[in-house]
């Protein structure tokens, strides 16, 4: 195992609170200089994992390496190199946002005022308002500015965009990409598929405290089918006998179906005989990947799965 090239390396992580098992064999890796997505539904153990990475909770009998160190014993030294945005940002109600940013930045090392002011502008945040008067999104921005203004090597972000509007989400994405360009590593937990799909190089999906799937986005896509939609001149054409075509739906001239990625070439060759006028292929979304893992659970709870 080459721990040096990994910003975060966790194997078989376990953690219990009393009799309740929160994490049960969780694996998580973040390559240096990459953005890693960390996906899972609420209560699946994302925040618990992140707190262990920060040395706020103690791991049970596992080796957890963060930037080559032990997050529990080397917390003080490691935290100089890590910036953190909590999922639920609580601030001191009678201090201003600017004061909170300075206090949090100072605790990690120092305040870079130029960077701070630039970020305040990008996120359109008024630092002279009392935190009491901030909305959830604005409190989130305070934590983001404090974290991004640092020159930390590793950014750990726990659902950082909850409460942000789409314009601010775009600003956030731009900042994260810049961080990657600067060679920093990012761990981004989320339950928003589009966000992870949009930003991340690798993804780890967890469920009930266990890693169920992990890899690069490209690798994970191989597990899924591509959705293809074609328009055919011949409305009587029947695609159902073509090997590899699944979930076929016909709507006038339009035919929509899914293909497992290894069958794609074969299906396209067959399709040529039907003289399609237009073809749209949609890559599988993480949403679909996600639903496959939780599909059984959701179905059992009476939620329909598309």
């Amino acid at each position, binding site marked *: 195992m080459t721990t040096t090239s990994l910003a975060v390396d966790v194997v078989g992580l376990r953690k219990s609170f009393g009799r309740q098992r929160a994490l049960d064999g969780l694996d998580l890796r973040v390559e240096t200089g990459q953005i890693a997505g960390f996906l899972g539904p609420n209560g699946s153990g994302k925040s618990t994992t992140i707190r262990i990475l920060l040395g706020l*909770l103690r791991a049970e009998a596992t080796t957890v390496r963060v930037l080559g160190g032990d997050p529990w014993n080397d917390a003080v030294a490691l935290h100089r190199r890590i910036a953190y945005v909590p999922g639920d940002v609580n601030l001191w109600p009678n201090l201003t946002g*600017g*004061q909170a940013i300075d206090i*949090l930045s100072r605790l990690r090392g120092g305040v870079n005022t130029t960077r701070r002011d630039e970020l305040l502008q990008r996120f359109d945040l008024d630092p002279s308002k009392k935190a009491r008067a901030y909305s959830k999104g604005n409190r989130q921005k305070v934590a983001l500015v404090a974290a991004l203004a640092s020159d930390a090597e590793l950014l750990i972000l726990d659902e950082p965009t909850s409460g942000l509007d789409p314009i601010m989400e775009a600003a956030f994405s731009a900042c994260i990409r810049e961080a990657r360009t600067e060679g920093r590593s990012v761990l981004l937990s989320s339950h928003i598929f589009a966000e992870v799909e949009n930003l991340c190089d690798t993804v780890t999906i967890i469920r009930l405290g266990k890693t169920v799937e992990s890899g690069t986005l490209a690798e994970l896509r191989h597990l899924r089918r591509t959705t293809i939609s074609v328009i055919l001149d011949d409305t009587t054409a029947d695609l159902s006998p073509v090997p590899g075509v699944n979930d076929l739906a016909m709507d006038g001239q339009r035919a929509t179906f899914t293909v497992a990625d290894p069958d794609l070439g074969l299906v396209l060759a067959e399709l040529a005989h039907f003289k399609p006028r237009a073809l749209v292929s949609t890559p599988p979304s993480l949403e679909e990947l996600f639903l496959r893992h939780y599909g059984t659970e959701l179905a059992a709870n009476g939620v329909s799965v598309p």
Partner: protein
Amino acid sequence: MVRFILRRNWLRLLIWAVVLVGMIPLVYESQRAAFPTEADREAYASIANTPSVAALTGTPYAADTLGGILVLKIWMTLAVTLAFATSFLVTRNGRADEEDGRTELLRSNVLGRHAYTVANYLVVGGFDILVGAAITAVAAAMPLPFDGSLVLGASLAGLGLFFLGVSAACGQLTSTSRGANGLAAVVIGTAFVVRAIGDLDGTGTTPGWISGLSPIGWAQQMRAFGENRWWPLAPLVGGAITLCAIAVRIEARRDLGAGVLPDRPGPSAAGRFMMTPFGLALRLQRASIAGWFAAVVVMALLYGSVASAMANLLGSNPVFAAVFGPNGSSATKGVIALLVMLNAIVASAFVVESALQVRVEEASGRAEPQLAGSISRIQWAGGRLLLPIIGSALMLVVGGVVMGSAYGASQNDAAQVWALLCASVIYWPGVLVTAGVTVFMIGVVPRLAPSLSWAFFAAVVIISVFGELFSLPTLITGNTPLTATPRLPVGQFTMPPILVLTAVAAVLWAIGLVRFARRDLAQDA
């Protein structure tokens, strides 16, 4: 709407009412025990009219009757408590609901713009009147003269109603519940101080004209068990109605959620000092610390100036002698020693509250991003806990010096300043033991820390003050943090107890801090 508010608040209303009304029989019984005969009361009446009594509770009148003494002892406490209770209740159902968006939810239904507000005023107004009626009934049952009891109840209810109007207006002017409560508290405080100045300025039992500017002064002028006047009730109730009407008018003109007074912007960057854990703790707790110090100074001034009068009065009473003067030492020294210890109790309350702020930060989730910074747990918690350590030392010094100056001035004895300073400061290790229990709890049982720490504090207070009255074994009464400390100037100063207390405090602090550093962070979900 009235029923809805009652259902949300019935327990709160009941507790306030029981506390307020319950004080009457308690104080009545204690005063009857203290002044059993006509002669005792006349003796009291002759010494009651001191400046500090006038400033704190108003000019005494009819102090030779039990009713008059009852008013003197408890009326001002009841009046101020009821004023605060009324304000908090009005704000809770008014501005606080609006701030949290609950009013928005209600008003989007079929409900008049003022229905919820007016229902709130009616419920709290009804509460004031009922408390007044209950006080009348309880006082008359003591038994005290009925007409005096009626005026007593009416004066308190009238004052409550007036501050209902004040807090209604405050709730419309400010845009936060904190602001509304703060503004109402300023009004109550101003009314109290204006009246205190007027009463100090008085001749005989008549306060000066300045008291006539304060609503508390008006209510006092009803003089229950004295002249039993009714006319001051008119401006109180009239003021209440006018202020409520103004509040409703403002509500009709403003947007939901807005106030008339703007929310001020603050500094957009933090100062260097504030970025340290100690500086941040000081900044966050500065209002509360100012309050604690104000309480210590006021108490010390009052205690110091009345100590010798109290000692003369109580020396003959066997019940009080048991508390104040153990082993037949002089009553004055006994009283002074007890008062110095009361100051140490205030300092103990402060350290518990201040030390618990570490847990408050942790429970609220604010500690997490701080500890994700490059700072060890011990450094972080230790920096914050420096505040109760230093604060309590200053409090004991200030309390001792002020009490010593006030007492020394009344005795023409400047040496008392140094004597009482020493008597006060030797409580520091004991106070730090109480703080140590809180730190220990935070480290070992974080979620139970607030309740267990306050329970320990309450036990210390009860045993220290009343232990001998309950005839508890000396093993218990002699070994609380405060009673283990030599009680100067009655007792003899010895070093061993101080060393033992210091050692116990050090162990509790060490275990608490180390456990805090080695355990999981426990946030309240």
